[in-house]
């Protein structure tokens, strides 16, 4: 499975807001109503296509509990994108966003793309945080915003893909230093300068393209 770029994501937010469910919905396309508490960090991966390019997403789903906070912090620096998730049916998870954001800004590289996600949009009846509030928070802090439902899969794809698009755009704009892997971005094997130069000498210039 070749790819043009590899992006590393992390998912952060209070415990129980549905981080693991978002990941499961994105990677396995299924919803698990009863999920065990995430211990530490769990890994998931999926391939997406942006602008005709294969992009591999490696996603680290973190534990929301306070006791795992120090572990979570170790993942900020190496991530290109972060999904900051709150639960629209629990006001307190929205109130804690500022703390999360401070933490993220402090420990991550400054170019990390942060997507704010109001999850559980299927539970409209129990809504405590208005969509406008989420939008306002995102505008104020320069985040992308989206409401999702890991249960119905609404906007889940979009959340992950839009984040990737934003990162991709930043790469095109030259904001990201793609040669520094600490940024959470990696160029795919057949796209790296070394193998490209190999291809130049080879008989088939499109050999690299074929193996995608």
């Amino acid at each position: 499975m070749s790819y043009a770029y590899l992006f590393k994501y992390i998912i952060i937010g209070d415990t129980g807001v549905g981080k693991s469910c978002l990941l499961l919905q994105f990677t396995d396309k299924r919803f698990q109503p009863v999920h065990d508490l995430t211990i530490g960090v769990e890994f998931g991966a999926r391939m997406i296509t942006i602008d005709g390019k294969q992009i591999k997403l490696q996603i680290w789903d973190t534990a929301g509990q306070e006791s795992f906070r120090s572990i979570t912090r170790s993942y900020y620096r190496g991530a290109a994108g972060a999904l900051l998730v709150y639960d629209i049916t629990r006001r307190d998870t929205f109130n804690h966003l500022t703390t999360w954001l401070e933490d993220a800004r402090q420990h991550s590289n400054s170019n990390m793309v942060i997507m704010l996600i109001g999850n559980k949009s299927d539970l409209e009846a129990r809504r405590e945080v208005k969509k406008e509030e989420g939008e306002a928070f995102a505008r104020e802090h320069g985040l992308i915003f989206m409401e999702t439902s890991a249960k119905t899969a609404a906007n889940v794809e979009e959340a992950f893909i839009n984040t990737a698009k934003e990162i991709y755009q930043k790469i095109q704009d030259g904001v990201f230093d793609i040669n520094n892997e600490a940024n959470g971005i990696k160029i795919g094997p057949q796209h790296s300068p070394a193998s490209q130069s190999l291809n130049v000498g080879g008989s088939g210039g499109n050999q690299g393209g074929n193996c995608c």
Partner: protein
Amino acid sequence: MDYFRKVLGAPQDVQTTSGAETIERLCERVSSSTLLDDRRDAVRALKALSKKFRLEVGTQAMDILLNVLEQDRGDSEIIGYTLDTLYHVMSNEPTDEGTYQYWSNMAGTDLGGQFTEIFIKHAENVHLLLTFLEEYDFHVRWPTVKLLTVLLTNRQKELQEIILVVPMGVSRLMDLLSDSREIIRNDALLLLNQLTKGHANIQKIVAFDNAFERIIDIVRDEGATDGGIVVEDCLLLLQNLLRNNASNQNFFKEGSYIQKLKPFFHLDDDPHSKQAGWSAQKVTNMHLLLQLVRTLVSPNNPQNQTVACQKVMNQCGLLQDLCSILMASGVPADVLTETINTVSEVIRGSQINQEYFASVLAPSTPPRPAIVVLLMSMVNEKQPFVLRCAVLYCFQSFLYKNEVGQSQIIQTLLPTAADAHSITAGQLLCGGLFSSDPLSNWFAAVALLHAIVENSTQKEQLLRVQLATSLGSPPVSLLQQCCNMLSQGGKLQTRIGLLMILCGWLADCPIAVSHFLSNTANVPYLISQVSASEGDEHEAIVQGLCAFLLGICMLYNDDTSEAFTKTALKQIIQNRIGLESFTDKLTQVAQNENYTRAAKKPHLYHKHPSEIVFDYEFTRLFKSLENEVLKAVSGTGSSINGRKGGGPSTEQYKHLLKDQEDQLILLRQRVEELQNHTIDADRSIVELRSQVQQLKDQNALLKAQKGSHSSPPLPQPAVSNFSAEEVESLRREVEILKLQLQETNNQLLNSNLDGDENKENNPDSAAVLQASLARQQGELKNKDEEIINLQLELEKVNILLKQKSSEPTDSVGPDTTSEAETRLQATEEKLHSVTEEKQSLQERLKKSNEENLKLANTIRVMEDEKLAAEEEKKTLKEDLETLRKEQDDLLVLLADQDTKIDKYKTKLKELGQEVEDDDDDDDDLGDDNEDDLDAD
């Protein structure tokens, strides 16, 4: 420097005191001097003394040195000396100056550990060290790495927790791998090895920070397996990161790192390098590389994980490379063994990989399948023991969940497929089974067991195998030959191997059981074994297995053997052996140390031939059938409570609960079905009712139609009835009129008789009367005519009716009458049947309602039962818990006791007392303790 030299030259007893004094003086200088140069010199001097006088420097200088680390950060030189000094104090590693080790030994074995504890008491000290890593200066960075490594080595858990909490702590250590100075990078590998040991969260962070990529790059740059100890460190670190860490394994697979491992397995084809042989380092590296692969496909990993990795390993050609190592020449035996183990786990349970493995050919002339070549070494006494174990493991893995493979192996044993010219797996297995080497017997028996396990077709096929024993004598079946060998005694492993294959063969295969029982010598042999008095531990195993085999004969007995039917066998067991004794012998098997060892994992990790007793697959069979055998033999059928021991009873309750739950589900389904049924029935009743109504309506309509049809053209029967009535009434009228006529006639006569006198009085009345009479007579006549007319008409109608009824087909007009009649009749019949049906349906409905009620009741009862069982289970669990606690307490007590004994012993020793007797006691205690643990 001269005070320093003085110290070294002095005699030993003076050395300590003067060393301590010097250190004291130096410490004072470090703490009081205002000049940096002065302090630096003093620290350098301390560093020089720190290897020799660890205790003194550690106790006196620790705080002062920590102070220096904080105060003099600006001067890398003094920091470097300080770090080195601390490193020497903490390190328990033997130094170059071996003669002086004596001093540190005097102060206890773990001096470094104690100083480490003091150092990390304040986590800030560790934080400080981590900030030193930002310093690029070699004199700071390198000693920091070394110091951190030694701290981690001494107090791993504590250090791991401290570093985990430091923001970017782990990441900073990871960055060291990118240091351009090799020595720092290499020491960083050692540091990371210590850091990641047994800590899943740190392992994940390290992996997140691109560890896999960087380490694999280092391995490649260092020349892969041809590389030095750095490669070894790298591979150890990789293994640390992956072992028992599903998330990292998934990341490793998703990151396509398996593909990157593949080139490392490619053996050099260059004949020169082959001749050179394998260096010790290369052997180690290859070993670690193979173990790395095994970590990814270990049978103990989550199954989906293993399956996914197996698939990748086949796709990227890693399995192919492994198989070529397997068949290559010049590979050292231990590498070959590990390669076989690795191939085993890469193919285990994966159909595609198993198929590939079956197709691998060894480069011999003529080419033979790799499986055959491997089996040849398995049954060859001269091959190393571990290699033979690995081959068996490989063979087992090849057959695991592989029915095709199983049938292929059994095929080679069958007479039809036998090819005289080539060696087959079957021949090798038979050869091994009947060789004089007990280990070969065991290996072959277990291999054969795996060829038929959970595969009743192959069990039956294997019954067909006949062996030619000696010239002239008739062939003997394989089954009988196994029994014969068993009864001849032989070595322990031979007998256990045979018993295991027999148990596996007969289990779940009534035909094999009846074959076995058809030889009347077999059962008496087993009886004699089981009823024998207890021998040593090994005999106990044989006896237990014989009991198990006997139980299987009973359990899967289809009563075709007249001498040994199910009941007969039960009788024999109960009378000749006794239930108690039988149970004891059987339960002994699972209590055996070797059994628990074998049951742990499929891999055969034996180090010595004497450890070979049980097979993993057999332990599974035993576990699954032990209770059933006991139940069957004890015979009461519902002897669930008859079994002993607290352990299995929770199991029983679990089973019971499960059964009940299943039953509950079944009943629920049943109720649902019945409810659906009633709903259907209700619906059909409603339908039928409406049908009845419709029919009634139709009926009425038909009647009405009939009415409307009859009046205009021809009088219809109902109308003819009506006209008959009319006729009747007319007749009656006529009668009345006649009577009236008679009366008037009489009156007239009377009046004529005595009425001449009246003639004059009433001359007119007679005329009137006569006129009226005449009129009435006319009227009567009219009426009569009318009656006749009507009668005629009636007759006509009747005739017509008859005509119509007799020849309905002739009728062309709207003669619905007869048709209607028949239809009427039909509908009436239908109606009748419908009402009957309805009645029966109502009855059924009633019945099903009753049944529903009953089921609901049973469900309630079952739920109560379930609750009760759950409660019981809880209490049992609590009991278990308390027992465990008690055991823990006891263990703690024992440990205390041990230390006390130790103390007393040393004291006694010091007092000059001989303490050998105590040693024995102590050993016994220890043994008991171990036994207790095993029993659990």
